[in-house]
């Protein structure tokens, strides 16, 4: 009886604690609609070494500044078992161009998922773009890095430190990244209600 009670309490607690993930935490799973009409889940990537999870959108000028850099990241790291998975957490009520058909128009060569389930809040993403680098730790994905792609949003040619790539390199070498979290400017998320 006591065990049942304790189990109930633990289950209740786990339901309540939808706090933001920290570096080292397990990455929340998701199953969201991709632009090809199929559902994509984090667990689909169990054979990869990691996932570059990018919360982004169409309308935000900062997301636009990083669009090409995100495409390039996938080109460079997909074959190295760190593919990009992009998630748009915005409801098109706020910005029409964040709607599904406009996501399809992007024709990205990586999944671009519509988050109408509030996955962004499970991760604690607050803005677009917002990066979560996930490491495959065997039976789970673990959050290894949170923050910015690099140190110069406005001018890609002036970038000195590529925070995200440095973190990926470290993981590939089995080391702890020099930076595990960085701060970036972005547009606040306009979620589905």
């Amino acid at each position, binding site marked *: 009886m006591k065990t049942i009670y304790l189990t109930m309490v633990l289950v209740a607690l786990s339901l309540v604690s939808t706090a933001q993930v920290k570096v080292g935490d397990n990455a929340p799973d998701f199953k969201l609609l991709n632009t090809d009409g199929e559902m994509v889940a984090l667990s689909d990537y169990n054979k990869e070494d990691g996932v570059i999870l990018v919360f982004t959108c169409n309308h935000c000028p900062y997301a636009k500044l990083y669009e090409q850099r995100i495409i390039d990241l996938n080109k460079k790291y997909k074959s190295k078992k760190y593919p990009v998975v992009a998630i748009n957490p915005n409801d098109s009520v706020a910005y029409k161009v964040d709607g599904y058909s406009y996501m399809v128009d992007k024709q990205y060569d990586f999944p671009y998922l519509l988050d109408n389930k509030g996955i962004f809040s499970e991760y604690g993403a607050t803005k677009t773009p917002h990066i979560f680098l996930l490491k495959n730790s065997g039976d789970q994905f673990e959050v290894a890095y949170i923050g910015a792609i690099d140190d110069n949003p406005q001018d890609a040619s002036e970038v000195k430190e590529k925070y995200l790539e440095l973190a990926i390199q470290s993981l590939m070498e089995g080391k702890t990244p020099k930076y595990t979290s960085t701060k970036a*400017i972005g547009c606040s998320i306009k979620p589905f209600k």
Partner: protein
Amino acid sequence: MKTAFFIILFNLSFVLSLHAQEVTVLNSNQLLESVDTSSDTLYVVNFWATWCAPCVEELPIFNSKELSKAYKPIKVVLVSLDFKTQIDSKLKPFLQKKDITEKVVWLNESNPNNWVDKIDPSWSGAIPATKMYYKNQQTFHEGELTHDKLKEKIQFILSMN
């Protein structure tokens, strides 16, 4: 007669230039140095950009004339995170069009990771965001504010002293 005309023209251009909105360029350290916490001035520092719709929407609440009814002396600083290439083409025309008379600072920083924490460690970097300074007290709010909420926050920081 001709001279009188030129004097009028000169005065007119002077009056017009008073209305032209100036944008002060500061880096994050200079911005923080401009906050005088030894005075009894309440500083309301709002981070925004013309490309950020919720920021533009809430901008009218940062009217120092209106806010000085709640407390005086008050200093409003609107810190623009517009792109460098758009200061002249977007920011300045926007200020003129909206007739914004508050102090506007364009933040001369390239790497957010170097300065976001200096404003507030709890800030994720999403805008709008509003920081207040009053004597040795500080408050921070990430996200949109309403006029009433801003007034509440002002009362709160004043009451902390």
